């Protein structure tokens, strides 16, 4: 097979390149059909609670609080706060304020100390994801047939 003369290649190469370039762009078509998007917004699904958390005594209430904190069920925990506290913060705000919690362990470390017949303190030890451990006193009020969490303060 004889080779093409070099002089001819000088013509053919740019010619072929031009034809390919123009061919590609002249045959490209853009289709744009009419379209519309509609949304059904505001759909909400919430789950109930199916684990029975025991708040029948201050100690059991403290243990239940621990389980809820570790499993990050802050919405459920909110239901077990005393009513005065719930009036100061919404469920959403409470869950939001707790969402960065890194509690990995929660132990009740004392017998309940009754301040009145309807208020008791329980000491707890909480371990965090970074390895730190702190002691707390949790206060529970008897309200609506169960011991509800009034608050928690760090102790020595």
């Amino acid at each position: 097979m004889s080779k093409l003369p070099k002089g001819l290649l000088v013509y053919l190469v740019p010619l072929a390149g031009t034809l390919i370039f123009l061919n590609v762009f002249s045959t490209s078509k853009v289709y744009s059909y009419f379209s519309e998007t509609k949304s059904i917004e505001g759909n909400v699904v919430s789950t109930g609670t199916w684990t029975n958390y025991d708040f029948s005594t201050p100690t059991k209430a403290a243990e239940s609080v621990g389980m809820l904190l570790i499993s990050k069920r802050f919405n459920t925990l909110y239901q077990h706060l005393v009513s005065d506290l719930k009036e100061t913060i919404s469920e959403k705000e409470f869950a939001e304020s707790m969402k960065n919690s890194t509690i990995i362990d929660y132990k009740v470390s004392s017998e309940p100390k009754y301040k009145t017949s309807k208020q008791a303190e329980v000491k707890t030890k909480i371990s965090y994801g970074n390895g730190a451990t702190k002691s707390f006193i949790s206060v529970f009020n008897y309200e609506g047939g169960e011991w509800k969490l009034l608050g928690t303060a760090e102790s020595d």
Partner: protein
Amino acid sequence: MAKIKYFLLGLLIGVILVGSASVVKAYLLKQKVLGESTVTVATLDLSTTPQTALFNLTKLAPGTTSGEQIIRLKNTGSTGIKYRVSVFPTNAENDNKLFQSLEYTLKSYTLGENLSKTYGGTGSLLKDLQNLEINQRLAEGEEKILKMEISLPASAGNDIEGTTTNFNIVFDATQSEGEF
């Protein structure tokens, strides 16, 4: 220098060849006016009923469902349409374990409300309901219904207890002969 000239010459010939093939020459010998012509562009529109909150479920528990909820879709435009459906959590926070655990069943019905096709079912996760093209067309003014059901599988863990998710159901419509 000579090579550059040859190169440019070749380029010019290429342009002339392609250009000459696409030029249309028209010699007008007579002209007749047919009067005013009108071209009206079709409109494409879709309405949904309800427009908000198809699902508003509280206290959903493992092994329970929402029951079938009815969506009415109407072609309110002037051209035939086809459509697809997707579900998106409203934001990253709502893309939680509950949203990822929910399952769906979606049924399309014909005009006479006879079951046409069932999508999803046990094991079909709501989070995977993306760009599902429904195999039915809506002619101009036509209305059809979908029935959608959401369920929480019995295997759902305790870690979704007491949680909430918010999501949107999105319908994309396009011309019957079009492409999404």
